[in-house]
Every structure is written in structure tokens, then in C-alpha cells.
């Protein structure tokens, strides 16, 4: 926290952003979920998205890897514009990893199989190489001894760390996290956040939807406050926490920082 002026993760906000969202709109039927979202994310930048429930945070980050389709505006990821072109979608999914609130591990496969499935069948690595890298990742997230277990035999925190390892195994350039700690018991939140902090420090480009403000303060380069499908306010953690400009931001922060 000493170098307030440059970004925490050391990324430089110049040149072409790796993710570029321009005036993104989306509707569910008549319901206007995203109302013109603009966001540029640079390589190595750590972005925290927060805001009230139902404000469209999940919908927005799911548009970035095309789990949801936007209907207006442009999203460009690593130079590829998201469109109906299936090849573009496949290309982007190789570059973007995602971690879900509910882990979504494959319950019928072991931890090792969960992690190596993508590398073997999508990246086409041979099994030995995939398993070697999976072991390294399990060590990185601190649970190498669980490799042969099934997800159902692990605690929530361990499952979420496996999910992070599974996403990293594809060697993505960008990681998306949708409330990764919201389904966890309090005592397990820390172990997952530590893994994410280490990842942020290693230079990974990350978009994290979270209400863990301690995490945001420690690693975020930019914070975006979402409300009713729009970005109401953005800035560095210092700007957002110390000097929020909008009333809605102030109100929301006062509510979540109370406890």
C-alpha cells in the first residue's frame, strides 16, 4: 500500500486493454439488465466489481466469456470480438478461466480428473504432462494430498481451491470470479482469498465480483460499483473507500462495511 500512485499489481494502464467493453446492453425479455456498461481492463489489472444483489454483476462477467449473450454494444477480449461466431467463442474460452460461487466441480470425477479434463481434451496435452501441471497447481493452492479424492469428500474451501486450479490448468490469460467466497463458511473464506491474492500478485488479469472489501483494498487496482445494470462509480480502492462521489455508493458501502 506504499505506492498509491501506480497500480498494486504493477500493471501499466497504457496501450490496448485486454478486455474492452463498450456500451454493453442486455435484456432478459423486457427486463433491461445491463444498461450501457463501459469497462477497460488492462493486462495484469485486478478489477473488483461490487454492488447490490440483482444489479447485474453476474450477468456482466458472464457476458465476457459468453455464458450470456449481450445484445448491444461491443465486447473485445484479447483482440477477439465476441459475436455469434462459434470459433470466436471457443477461442475466447481458452483464454478466460472462470470460478463460480457454487464451485461447479464435476462430482463424478476425482480432483485430478477435474483439473486435467480441459488440458487433455481441449489443449490436447498428453496425460502425463497434464497431471504434472495439475499437481503443481494443487501444490500452489495448498491441497496436493487431495488429488485422488472426489469433490464430495472435500470441504467447501478445498473445493473452491480445486475449482481455481481447474481454471488455471487451462493457462488462461484472464480469470473471472463470481462471488467465489459467498457460498463458504466464514472459516474457509480466508484460505480461498489467500490463493486469489497470490494469483493477483503473480500478474494475472482478474475480474472479481465480491463483497470482501479487505480483499479489494489489498489487491484491487480498480473497483467498479454496479447498480441497476450500470456502473455508478469507479476508481482505485482508496478513492472508492475514502472519497466516494455518489450517494448510492456511500449508502451501499456503509451497509456492507458495518460488520
Amino acid at each position: 500500500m506504499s505506492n498509491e500512485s501506480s497500480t498494486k499489481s504493477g500493471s501499466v494502464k497504457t496501450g490496448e486493454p485486454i478486455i474492452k467493453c463498450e456500451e454493453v446492453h442486455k435484456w432478459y425479455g423486457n427486463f433491461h439488465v445491463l444498461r450501457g456498461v463501459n469497462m477497460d481492463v488492462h493486462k495484469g489489472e485486478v478489477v473488483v466489481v461490487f454492488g447490490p444483489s440483482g444489479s447485474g454483476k453476474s450477468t456482466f462477467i458472464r457476458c465476457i466469456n459468453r455464458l450470456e449473450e449481450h445484445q448491444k454494444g461491443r465486447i473485445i477480449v484479447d483482440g477477439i470480438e465476441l459475436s455469434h461466431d462459434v470459433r470466436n467463442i471457443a477461442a475466447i474460452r481458452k483464454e478466460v478461466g472462470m470460478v463460480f460461487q457454487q464451485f461447479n466441480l464435476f462430482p463424478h470425477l476425482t480432483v485430478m480428473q477435474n483439473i486435467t479434463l480441459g488440458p487433455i481434451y481441449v489443449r490436447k496435452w498428453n496425460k502425463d504432462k497434464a497431471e504434472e501441471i495439475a499437481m503443481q497447481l494443487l501444490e500452489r493452492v495448498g491441497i496436493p494430498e487431495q488429488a485422488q479424492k472426489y469433490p464430495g469428500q472435500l470441504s467447501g474451501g478445498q473445493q473452491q481451491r480445486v475449482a481455481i486450479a481447474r481454471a488455471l490448468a487451462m493457462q488462461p490469460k484472464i480469470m473471472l470470479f463470481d462471488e467465489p467466497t459467498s457460498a463458504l463458511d466464514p472459516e474457509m473464506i480466508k484460505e480461498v482469498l489467500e490463493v486469489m491474492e497470490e494469483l493477483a500478485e503473480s500478474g494475472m488479469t482478474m475480474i472479481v465480483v465480491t463483497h470482501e472489501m479487505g480483499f479489494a483494498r489489498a489487491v484491487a487496482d480498480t473497483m467498479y460499483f454496479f447498480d441497476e445494470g450500470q456502473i455508478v462509480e469507479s476508481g482505485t480502492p482508496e478513492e472508492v473507500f475514502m472519497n466516494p462521489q455518489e450517494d448510492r455508493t456511500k449508502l451501499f458501502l456503509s451497509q456492507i462495511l458495518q460488520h
Partner: protein
Amino acid sequence: MTSLTPAKDILPPPTERSTVLGWMKKNLFGSIGDTILTFVAGGLLLWLIFAIVNWILTKAQWAAVTDNLQLYMKGQYPASEDWRLWLLMFLLALIVGMAWGIFLKRAEAVGWVLLIIPVVLAVWLITLHRESWWRFLVVDILAMLGYFLGKRYPKKLARPTYILLLLYMPLVILVVRGFGENGFMKLVGTNLWGGLLLSLLLAVFGIVFSFPIGVLLALGRQSKMPALKTLSVIYIELIRGVPLITLLFMGQLMLPFFLPAGITIDRVIRAVVAIIMFAAAYMAENVRGGLQSIPKGQYEAADVIGLSGWQKMVFIILPQALRAVIPVLVGQFIGLFKDTSLVALVGLLDLLGIARGILANPSYIGRQLEVFAFIAMIYWVFSYGMSYASGRLETTLGVGER
């Protein structure tokens, strides 16, 4: 002291001492009402068992069964070619024994029951003065041999066992049907296939082919491609709206009108196709139930790691969906096995067809009860076997889940 050994404070759960008397007191004679019910139900049960055993041993005349054992088992299949069927039995015993040794590893009570059945059959045949009794003992010996080999060399034999299992069905057709006009393995036309042999062949082929077709139909019904989806829905709903017997009659009577003159399709094949078509539609609906039980998050997680549509289905969705519906599917397999008896109504001589044929013989007038009790028992043994195997499969596959 206590602070050093806190573990000592942890008490084991209280154990209920269970004795036979204790169990009976609790479950059978807990109250006056229970006691009355126990006596009434117990009395009825005893009376029923006595009546049945009495009928089997003293009243029933089993000639209609014992005179025609060959017919029940294999219909008109020529006696000179019996060795082919026994050869297949022997091979099956060996394969099952090996698979048991490799995958289950333990002998288990069921294993013993399975081994006792051929012994009982052999003893029965001896009392009937049949010469073929020793063949059942060969079946047992081969099964045990397979078991010990499988247990001893599980790694080496796993692959050959899989291959044998896969090859077994085509081999059955080749050996049962044969080839060439005469000589070694001469052709035995399907018109001579019958009895349990035919029933089992119909059931096994019905199951083995309707299953993948059903899975494809279920996937088709879920598909985003409108043409595929519509076709699947139409097929499923059409077939489900028609009784199997109608399909069988259509296959036997109407199909010849649609085929060009001179082309005939074997009657057994027509029946089997009707059974497969019928079962596939129901299979599709059951599999669809399994597919719907898979949470959306599983699809998304597979998408996110970049799996293609087919990879997603094969590696993630289907294994979970099928596992969820094993009991339903096995129930359907059992139903299918019993439904094969409908082919008797279109003139095929399966187990039921043979039974009806035998009862038409004037010397067996009035022996319906014996004959139907006998074939009912055969159907029951196989159906219960499938049901039991499915229970085992569920527990085996359930290991380490959730």
C-alpha cells in the same frame, strides 16, 4: 489429568444389545395390536407356504414340464447342434467368472448362490435320468476357474475380459445361427430358435440396441436444432402412444406389404426391431429425466473449460445423468425382458409360445398351472437377478460420490 486426555471424555454411542428375542419383542409383539397382526399374518403365511409346497409335491403333475425341458430351453433347435449352445454357456461362465474375480474381487453370498443353481439343476437332471447333467458342473468349474484366474491376474486379464465381453454378443449370433448348408456349424434357421434361448436373445438384443438409440433420442429431444428436436419428439410420442403388441403385429403382417417383392425379412428380426423401436422411446424419456436432474452449473463449468458439445455430453453430463437413472433403466430392462413374451402372440415360439404349444398337446390337458408356474419361475429368476445386479451396480458406482 482430565485436561491432558480430553479424548477420554468422548463417549461411544450407547449400544442396543440386539438378540433375536429382543428384536421379536420390539418389532412383532410391541403392543396388543402388533401381536394380533403378527399372529394373523404369520398364520396366513404358514398356510400359504404349506399349500404351495403340498401342491408342488403331491398334487401337481410335472410331466408337462419334465418331458419337454429341451423345448422350454431352446425350442426346436436341433439336438445334434446342442453342443454349440453349451459351448456358449461355458464361455459365458468363464467370462463372468473372470469379470467377477477382476472387478468384484470377493466371492460373496450371491456368488455361492449362483454356483449352487447349476448343482441343483444337475441333481434334478440326474433324478430325471438325463445324461446331460454333468454339463452344469462344467459350467460351475469354468466359472470358478475364471474367478481364480481373474483374482490372480487382474491386471493382465482385464483387457481380454473387456474384449471377450464385447465380442460375446456377435459370437452368440454367429454360433447359434451357424453358416453353410451342412457339416460343422451348419445353419440353423431362426424358425427353429425358441424357448428361453429365444426369449433371452430378444431381451438382450432389445436392451443392447434400444439403450444407445434411447440416449440419442433423449439428446435429440434436448437439442437446440429444431429439425432434430421435432423428429425426436414425434418419434417418442408416436411410439409411446402405441402398445408393443401393435408394433409386433405391424412388423409381422404389414411390413411385407411395404417391402419390394422378393425381399423378405426374417420374422425374428422383425420382432426384435419392433421391440428395439418400442423400448428406445421409453428409454429416451427415462434418460431425459436423468438429463434434467443435472444442474445448469455443470453445463457451464464444462463450457468454461472449453469442452465441445460432444465432449461435454460424454464426459460430464451423460455419466451423471445415466447414473441417476440406473434404477429406472433396470426396471425398464426387466419390463422389456418380460414383454418379449408378447412375441408369442405373433406366432414366435419363445418361452411363452412354447408353453402354449405344449399345452395344446392333448396329453397335457389341464396342466396349465404347472406349465405357467414353471415359466413364471424362470422369468422371475432372471428378473430378480437383474434387479439384484442393479442394486450392486448402484452401490459400486456410488462410491466417493457427493
